[in-house]
């Protein structure tokens, strides 16, 4: 009998502790982010400054974010990070809340290109702001400063016969169609009509004849660069790639083409199931501080939205990546390009 009583008591205490911890967790801000977007020291500083506890869950892919947010209809997280190409999908599925930009003091201090959010394609809908830009990188051009003179200003240099067999391109139909469309001067590189597609394809066949090889990873491009005569690299991995090359002693520089460089942009968004909107706003505002922005770029090599970095000069034209009209078609046509003798 005594034993049973003791058990009951233990169970009650256990239950009590369980409830207490879940109550403590309930007060915490729940953040879903890529590795590098919510480093432990920032979280500590944030809690010290605001008194709000934070639970961070890291994700590894766009699909994983979608699965986690969609799976709980936004109830499991308060804030998360997502790129411009993905964001519209979340807005359409009613998984994110509009953000009151006036609550974000630091947003007024961001780099000029991010100040007017209606000008950042993909982060607004029907005049409401859903995403606050946080981290980006451009897909520019890496060139060997000893071999390419004068310094290139446009991707059209990739087609220059002077560099035949010295060009490294990236093995991806979607991106290649987009950047070639920009080079041809098309306004919306993500929505091409039949005629434009055919023109881009013909142009890519020409590109192929000037190219040494198509690479897939930054590492691979670096190895090819070391063992061959490479003058130009279409830099899918942007700053990380150029810095890695400079580290091994390569004489390379980076440029965003004048016709516009494709660029990815990650944003902070507030989920539909947010428990404390004010806390979420404080988190985003904290993330837009000069200190966090600077450290983010220092640690990851990516560009941030508050301090100037190598990802883009103030006047560089960036074209934020968006969903393309038909990924399957682009992939098929890319195979046709590759199969053309």
């Amino acid at each position, binding site marked *: 009998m005594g034993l049973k009583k003791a058990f009951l008591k233990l169970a009650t205490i256990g239950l009590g502790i369980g409830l207490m911890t879940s109550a403590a967790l309930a007060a915490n801000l729940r953040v879903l982010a890529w590795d590098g977007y919510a480093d432990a020291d920032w979280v500590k500083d944030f809690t010290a400054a605001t008194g709000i506890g934070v639970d961070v869950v890291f994700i590894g892919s766009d699909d994983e974010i979608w699965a986690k947010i969609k799976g709980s209809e936004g109830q499991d997280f308060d804030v998360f990070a997502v790129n411009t190409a993905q964001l519209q999908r979340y807005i359409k599925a009613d998984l994110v809340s509009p953000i009151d930009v006036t609550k974000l003091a630091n947003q007024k201090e961001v780099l000029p290109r991010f100040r007017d959010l209606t000008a950042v394609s993909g982060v607004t809908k029907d005049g409401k702001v859903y995403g606050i830009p946080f981290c980006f990188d451009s897909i520019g051009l890496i060139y060997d400063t000893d071999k390419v003179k004068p310094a290139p200003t446009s991707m059209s240099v990739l087609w220059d016969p002077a560099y035949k*067999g010295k060009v490294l391109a990236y*093995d*991806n*139909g*979607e991106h290649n169609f987009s950047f070639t469309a920009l080079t041809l001067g098309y306004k919306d590189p993500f929505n091409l009509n039949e005629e434009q597609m055919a023109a881009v394809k013909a142009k890519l066949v020409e590109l*192929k*004849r000037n*190219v*040494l*090889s*198509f690479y*897939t990873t930054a590492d*691979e491009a670096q*190895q*090819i660069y*070391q*063992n*061959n*005569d490479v003058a130009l690299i279409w830099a899918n991995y942007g700053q990380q790639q150029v810095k890695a090359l400079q580290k091994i002693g390569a004489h390379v520089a980076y440029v965003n083409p004048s016709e516009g460089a494709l660029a990815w942009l990650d944003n902070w968004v507030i989920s539909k199931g947010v428990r404390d909107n004010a806390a979420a706003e404080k988190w985003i505002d904290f993330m837009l501080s000069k200190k966090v922005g600077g450290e983010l770029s220092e640690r990851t090599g990516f560009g941030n939205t508050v301090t100037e970095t190598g990802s883009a000069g103030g006047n560089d034209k960036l074209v934020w990546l968006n969903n393309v009209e038909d*990924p*399957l078609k682009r*992939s*098929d046509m*890319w*195979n*046709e390009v*590759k*199969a053309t*003798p």
Partner: protein
Amino acid sequence: MSKADSTLPAERRLSLLVTVLAFALPVVFVLVPLAIFLGYSFFSVDQGTIVYSLSLGNYVRFFTDPVFLPVFWNTIVLCVSVAIICILLAYPAAYFLTTLKGRWRYALLMLLLVPLLMSYVIKIYAIRSILGLNGFLNKALVTLGILQEPSTLFVFNMNAILLTLTLLLIPFAILPIFLSLERIPQVLLRASDDLGASGLQTFLRITLPLSLPGVASAASFVFVLAIGDFLTPQMVGGISGFTFGRILYSQFGTAYNWPFGAALSVALAVVVIAAILIGERFGRNRGISV
């Protein structure tokens, strides 16, 4: 009596269980997946989602689209060439091994098989840097005066795939040829010698015919491994070395067209099965039973 009665069914049950397992494993892990694959090849994709209604559309596309058949054919020619070169290089090596005595023979054989212990990707990386413009091969040829200046002939084209696959797959050719040569009874060779045949005659009329089964299985091994490879062409093929494996691979990554990828795999599987059957047929016909 009663004891024997009770153990027999138990034994029988155990053997039944073993039999079921022996059949179930290949069925579950080989036949069922293959059947699913075959099933997928009749589906289609619309707006990024798979449509589960049967159609021959994928096969029609494979045979009518001008992209696929030429690449398919070129890939088969490439892999047959790889198999032939592998045989031509492996045969003398295997023959040399059989002339060695005792421990040396197996020590050397082991050395030839060591590359199989290394990661495939690392080997491709290494070979690619050897073939590159500033690579070892070019440097050696220029130093020896064979080439005036480094050549781009060896990397990022079909030659590169041919060279790389040959290098990677040679061990798979040496082993079966070595085994078939080793199984040739010494008495036959001695009898031939006694009857006054020259070394060349003995080789052409006894050794070579009796080793053909090994050659056949070596050729089918190499061909099958080469034609299924997409990584080597991807990494050293550059712009002109576009093979069927690369098309197939692209259907599963960015394109997300699994049904069409499955149909292409079925086409590949037909060729692979044919190669295995041919290899096996030759392997059996001329086999020796001593």
